[in-house]
């Protein structure tokens, strides 16, 4: 019996199973970008191990004319290039799906499934016949299969050629052979394989002005635009590329054209104890500074974070979240540092967190974090994750208003000090809990103070008196209230029909959530959705919960960390919240969210509304 064939235009998932270090990454990205060039949105994801060479790595591309950028789950076409992971890769293909593989060495029938469509191409033979050099054989094999896929998926070969042309502009030596390899693959497929298969890419106009960018690059660019001059970091996946991108952008955008000197300093510190210390020192001295790290780095930084909170020093931390300790799982995505950052450090502390949903918000929130840190004189965390940070994601173009000035916060100048303005480092002059500070070296006789953690009065004089301590701690709470008015507001997506249920979500869950809301509505299940974008939580969030009989809280961690924070800090009754938790290291999918929500609503006996009728 012939297997059925999945038929779909501009809506399918293709997954590449490769060996790490084989040069597949750039070929795979070329493939994804070619589809974008055809006006069809794609959402690619890297699934990679914690090593550089030899272990399996996957690249999953969701082709989605509707623009659903979350991970879908399931695979329609597997490009199986790694014998090591063959069995698991074959098992993952949807019934009626396709397998593309290197058929140079014959494989026994038992290695295949009879409910999928198998497409073999002797890639190794073709390469061996064409190239002498072993490295070339390996590299061009990747481009050859991209050419073959172009034929199989009925893609526009011109789009691929155009991209290859841009990539190797000025490097004629590389341009030609790459074009040839792509063409060779395409010609072979057209001549020997049945083209096209049931999956096809068709030109569309669904990409528009959107850009294709990694969240880490966007955060780095946000730091450039937001005026960061000092970056201190210690390498850790998935955050290293923030510092690396910052350096790249700075070399382009921050070198003084006249002197050739740098308006930035990047220090690769000896560890995270030092990177956060440097950021703290720079912030104390009035420069905008940031570090980028991930969970283990946050753990090491917590002592300093506490000091910066108590001593009221601007600090910006980009936390690209991943799984727990050690290596392996940690290079998969999670939203599991919510509590460890919100309450980082010893003593009574709480910190400002921002939750970007995509590269665009990584850019905006990083720039904003630098303003907030100066304004509030406190650590501010940009809570991104591996899914946003290390995958190229389609998003709206970045925007900047040239009229914008940096908010340097309350800094008393030499003139103000000279004029006799009352300076108390921890004195609340304006009633918003935020004191004034001075930069070191401002005035010969006024405004100097001795910075300590806790033991001080309003004028920064040494004091171990209880009332002074309490007074200061109360002011810090007031300052945290002020923070609520400054951080990004939650965004509501109202259902088309009045809804009993609500859903709260944040960060990288965003695209899966949008798709899930659409799918739920198609089933007649209407929910209002609130995307939380920052902590401390504004009153809108508690009001939203109060307005629904139950609210789902969608998170990518085991312990319902955001829910805990909501209960603790927004005084929400935990009985009104239902957790939907996804934490196996893969990005959350719309399918998962829909299944969980639909199961609960069914159990609570909610009759779906007829699609066209309001309740």
């Amino acid at each position, binding site marked *: 019996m012939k297997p059925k064939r999945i038929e779909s235009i501009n809506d399918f998932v293709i997954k590449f199973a490769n060996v790490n270090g084989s040069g597949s990454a750039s070929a795979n990205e070329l493939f994804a970008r070619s589809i*974008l060039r055809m006006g069809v949105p794609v959402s690619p994801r890297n699934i990679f191990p914690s090593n550089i060479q030899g272990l399996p790595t996957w690249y999953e591309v969701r082709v989605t004319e509707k623009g659903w950028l979350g991970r879908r789950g399931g695979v329609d076409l597997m490009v199986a290039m790694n014998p090591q992971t063959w069995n698991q890769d074959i098992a993952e293909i949807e019934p009626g799906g396709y397998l593309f593989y290197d058929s140079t060495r014959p494989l026994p029938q038992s290695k295949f499934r009879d409910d999928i469509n198998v497409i073999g191409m002797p890639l190794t033979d073709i390469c061996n016949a064409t190239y002498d050099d072993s490295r070339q054989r390996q590299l061009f094999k990747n481009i050859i299969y991209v050419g073959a896929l172009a034929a199989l998926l009925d893609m526009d070969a011109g789009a691929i050629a155009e991209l290859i042309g841009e990539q190797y502009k000025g490097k004629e030596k590389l341009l030609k052979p790459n074009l040839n390899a792509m063409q060779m693959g395409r010609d072979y497929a057209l001549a020997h394989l049945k083209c096209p298969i049931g999956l096809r890419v068709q030109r569309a106009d669904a*990409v528009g*002005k959107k*850009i*294709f960018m990694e969240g880490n690059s966007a955060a780095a660019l946000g730091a450039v*635009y937001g*005026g960061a*001059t*000092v970056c201190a970091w210690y390498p850790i996946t998935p955050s290293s590329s923030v510092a690396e991108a910052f350096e790249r952008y700075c070399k382009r*955008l921050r070198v003084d054209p006249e*002197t*050739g*000197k*740098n*308006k*930035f300093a990047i*220090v690769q*510190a*000896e560890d995270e*104890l*030092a990177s956060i*210390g*440097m*950021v*703290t*020192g*720079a*912030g*104390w*001295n*009035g*420069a*905008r*500074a940031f570090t980028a790290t991930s969970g283990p780095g946050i753990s090491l930084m917590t*002592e*300093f974070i506490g000091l910066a909170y108590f*001593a009221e020093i601007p600090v910006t931390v980009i936390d690209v979240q991943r799984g727990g300790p050690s290596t392996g799982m940690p290079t998969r995505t999670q939203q599991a540092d919510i509590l460890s950052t919100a309450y980082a450090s010893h003593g009574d502390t709480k910190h400002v967190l921002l939750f970007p949903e995509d590269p665009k918000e990584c850019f905006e929130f990083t720039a904003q974090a630098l303003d907030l840190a100066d304004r509030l004189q406190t650590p501010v965390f940009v809570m991104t994750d591996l899914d946003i940070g290390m995958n190229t994601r389609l998003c709206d*173009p*970045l*925007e*900047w208003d*040239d009229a*914008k*000035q*940096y908010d340097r916060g309350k800094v008393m100048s030499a003139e103000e000090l000279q004029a006799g303005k009352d300076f108390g480092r921890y004195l609340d002059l304006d009633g918003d809990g935020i004191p004034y500070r*001075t*930069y*070191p*070296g401002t*005035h*010969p006789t006024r405004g*100097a*103070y*001795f*910075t*300590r*953690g806790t033991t001080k009065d309003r004028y920064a*004089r*040494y*004091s171990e008196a209880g009332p002074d301590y309490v007074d200061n701690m109360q002011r810090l709470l007031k300052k945290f209230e002020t923070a609520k008015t400054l951080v990004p507001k939650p965004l509501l997506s109202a259902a088309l029909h009045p809804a009993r249920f609500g859903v709260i979500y944040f960060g990288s869950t965003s695209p899966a959530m949008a798709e899930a809301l659409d799918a739920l509505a198609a089933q007649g299940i209407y929910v209002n959705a609130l995307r939380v974008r920052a902590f401390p939580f504004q009153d809108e969030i508690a009001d939203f919960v109060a307005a629904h009989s139950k609210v789902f809280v969608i998170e990518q961690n085991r312990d319902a960390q955001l829910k805990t924070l909501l209960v603790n800090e927004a005084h929400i009754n935990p009985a009104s919240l239902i957790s939907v938790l996804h934490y196996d290291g893969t990005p959350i999918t719309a399918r998962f969210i829909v299944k969980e929500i639909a199961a609960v609503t069914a159990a609570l006996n909610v009759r779906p509304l007829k699609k066209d009728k309001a309740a």
Partner: protein
Amino acid sequence: MTYLTKPKLHHPTLQKNKVGYTRRDYEGKISTLCAGCGHDSISASIIQACWELDIQPHRVAKLSGIGCSSKTPDYFLGNSHGFNSVHGRMPSVLTGANLANRELIYLGVSGDGDSASIGIGQFAHIMRRGVNLTYILENNGVYGLTKGQFSATADAGSKSKRGVVNRDAPVDTVSLALQLGATYVARSFSGDKKQLVPLIKGAIAHQGAAFIDIVSPCVAFNNHEGSTKSYDYVREHNDSVNRLDFWPTRDAISIDYQAGAVIDVAQHDGSVLRLRKIHPEYDPLDRVKALNYIAEHQAKGELVTGLLYVHPDAEDLHAHLNTVDTPFNQLNARELCPGAAALAKINAALR
């Protein structure tokens, strides 16, 4: 604890320096350390050095870690900003501060627990990076503030107040600093102000990582018989290789010595370090020989003091990073933000 401010009684005869300040203007709060603590003498030497150097007090930033030693920045230069940071982590905070404003003078004050135990990593790396600072290590061989535990600089065989003998090998911070690339390395004794004040002046004038290890007896926990960091022990075993006279410029030099008895080292800022030789063969410009000399004499139980090494043309971190002359903390959106037009180009390249 009560808070003490020093009565400011300006004596009319108090001498003013070139920038118009008396020595009192370089003082800070009254010390709360134990009477006789070596650390207080070091504070006095810092005050003297800054006054003699005609530094405006508010142009100094003083940073420290945690410990009795790290409390001292509150007791000198009361018109300077100070930062009592995290135990062992002064170097990173100072590095960041230095990056933010290259125009201030940076004093880092630390203890032996702070620098040789919990903070040995940061101590090592600030030396490597060549941060322009004066790093003062107030070395008493114990943790004063936590009441007398051995520190990592305690010599093997030295005895604690309770009679316990330390068996672990000591960390020699001077040798470490030399190995790690510090460009001005000295050792002194808190009780020898004559030696110490010029060494501090030379360090402040030095444009790179300057390190001074100062043996500073803890009278409460480490000044007894059997300690190698007591006043008596240090006086007996002090092997000074040279005596430093600091001259702000070559023109200012007013004392002549017979040829061969001195070495003159001109530093980058124009100041001159005139070293009167005590050990004629000692060459403070040779790092490798300095390391050997220290090791040899240490093995004999001698404490080598003086200016042990100087690299007069040192480069600092700002030079390595090729940073602009304007302090970062004075740059604003106009200088730092590439603007909307540049962003439009970046967007276009991401399609």
